């Protein structure tokens, strides 16, 4: 494929094997997801040309990248701790890759909203501001591909939530395909269009974010992505700290995540889904969803039940309650989910 990043590389130290075809079309953000030590950063450095693979090849839109220096690849790289040049002002940090193009510096500074900070030194910035400056610096030379290594991990939780939204907005606006390394589920959901799951130096699954979370290809991937239901949701209204959302045609109540975005991923841990026999619906803060059992799979002391509630919902229940309700495919049940158990991760569409 011409409009894609083709990766087929191997490296012995640290061990890594990656075969990936990342489309660079309309869905521009790919997340490399996995636990620490899974090889995410190694893969990112290989794509950047900062390290060399033992064998294999990387092709970007048909251009062979093997043997090209990082300079020749024309990429942007965001380091985990931002790696701003401490002896240079914000202005000169951003200008480093675009000599003498003051207009471009002003342009990207405005874009990520650091135009007030141009004369400061990195030591005088907050974590969130440093992150913005690092992003502006990487964007300034108009890279063909942006590589981000745990871009938000050095930040405190409030600035992280704010920057997740903003980072995605900027990347979408700039139409620059990006590859983001993270071990954080929320970050993966907030930023990614596609998700590649790495375990032990190997890419195990690659697909749309919601798909990978909903149907892990094997046990190793399932362990990494967690036992979570992830569904695209729309926030319909907000009141008193609660948000009414719709997943497909189903309405649920969740905690309001704040912010102004109306698009989100709704995450529900399978352990937090209670099953009951269908009955007259009670109207409380909890969500009661009528559904039909699709599959029932024993998992050790628990049973994994896949339901169709208008969307696909996975529940983990004890064997005893599975037996009590005689759970079997085709049976009607009610799924109960408390509002605080529905976690919303807002994202820019």
């Amino acid at each position, binding site marked *: 494929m011409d409009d894609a990043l083709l990766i087929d590389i191997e490296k012995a130290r640290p061990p890594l094997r990656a075969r990936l075809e990342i489309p660079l079309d309309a869905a521009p953000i790919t997340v490399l997801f996995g636990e620490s030590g899974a090889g995410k950063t190694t893969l990112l450095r290989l794509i950047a040309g*900062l390290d060399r693979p033992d064998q294999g090849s990387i092709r970007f839109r048909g251009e062979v990248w093997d043997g090209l220096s990082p300079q020749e690849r024309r990429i942007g790289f965001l380091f985990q701790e931002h790696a701003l040049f*401490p002896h240079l002002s914000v202005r000169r940090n951003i200008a480093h890759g675009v000599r003498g193009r003051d207009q471009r510096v002003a342009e990207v500074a405005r874009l990520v909203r650091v135009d007030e900070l141009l004369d400061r030194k990195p030591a005088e910035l907050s974590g969130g501001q440093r992150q913005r400056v690092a992003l502006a610096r990487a964007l300034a030379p108009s890279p063909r591909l942006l590589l981000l290594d745990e871009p938000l991990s050095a930040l405190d939780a409030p600035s992280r939530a704010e920057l997740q939204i903003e980072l995605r907005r900027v990347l979408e606006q700039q139409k620059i395909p990006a590859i983001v390394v993270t071990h954080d589920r929320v970050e993966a959901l907030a930023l990614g269009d596609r998700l590649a799951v790495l375990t032990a130096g190997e890419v195990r699954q690659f697909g749309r974010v919601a798909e990978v979370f909903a149907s892990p290809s094997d046990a190793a991937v399932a362990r990494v992505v967690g036992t979570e239901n992830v569904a695209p949701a729309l926030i319909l209204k907000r009141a008193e700290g609660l948000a009414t959302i719709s997943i497909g045609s189903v309405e649920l109540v969740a905690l309001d995540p704040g912010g102004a975005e109306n698009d989100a991923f709704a995450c529900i841990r399978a352990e937090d889904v209670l099953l009951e026999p269908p009955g007259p619906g009670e109207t409380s803060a909890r969500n009661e969803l009528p559904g039909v059992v699709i599959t029932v799979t024993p998992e050790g002391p628990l049973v994994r039940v896949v339901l169709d509630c208008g969307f696909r919902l996975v529940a983990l229940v004890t064997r005893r309650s599975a037996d009590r309700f005689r759970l079997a495919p085709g049976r009607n049940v009610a799924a109960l989910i408390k509002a605080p158990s529905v976690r919303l991760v807002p994202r820019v569409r």
Partner: protein
Amino acid sequence: MDASALRLSLELAALTTVGLLVLGIPLAQWLATTAFRGKVIAETIVSMPLVLPPTVLGYYLLVAFGNRSPLGQAWIRLTGHPLAFSFAGLLVASLLYSLPFAVQPFAASLSRVDKRLVEASWSLGVSRLATFFEITLPLAAPGIVAGAVLTFAHTLGEFGVVLMVGGNLPGETRTLSIAIFDSVEKLDYASANATALFLLVVSFAVLLVTHVLRQSVWTTRS
């Protein structure tokens, strides 16, 4: 105090410092970044003058500079003068003798520069050379200055190598430390005293500057 000895010492120290900045920084950068296994041999050779008696280094240089050695002969053919007992010979000897005083602080500060800053610059499309001059070198500046100051002071005070290679020719190889030795031999204690005090004060000032610089490195790091 012997004015021509002072001028000679300052000239020698300044040229040695400049020479070691030009030659020592690339060598130090190589030592700081190479993965080459034989690097430890290179490091050992560089630090040899720290432990070698100056007379040993001076002796070998004298042999190498001599009129019968290929180097000595080539120098005579090139300039018409012998290299031994000349200012040029003294300069070469000083460059070698002060090598560790320059290269070790250079290499230490260059290797402390965060590799990610260098990689960040590369990934912005900036060449390796430009990255070295704009990122690596400014960040290593305190160590570079410390090395240069130490080189200057060390050259100002060197004695054994100078005596072996240069002898005691006024205006050509007679440096301050030689002048002191000469004064004492002639029982001219007043002159020896003045020169010695001058070198003492200069050494103190130079070391004070390096210590202050080193401390400012610490405080900017924490």
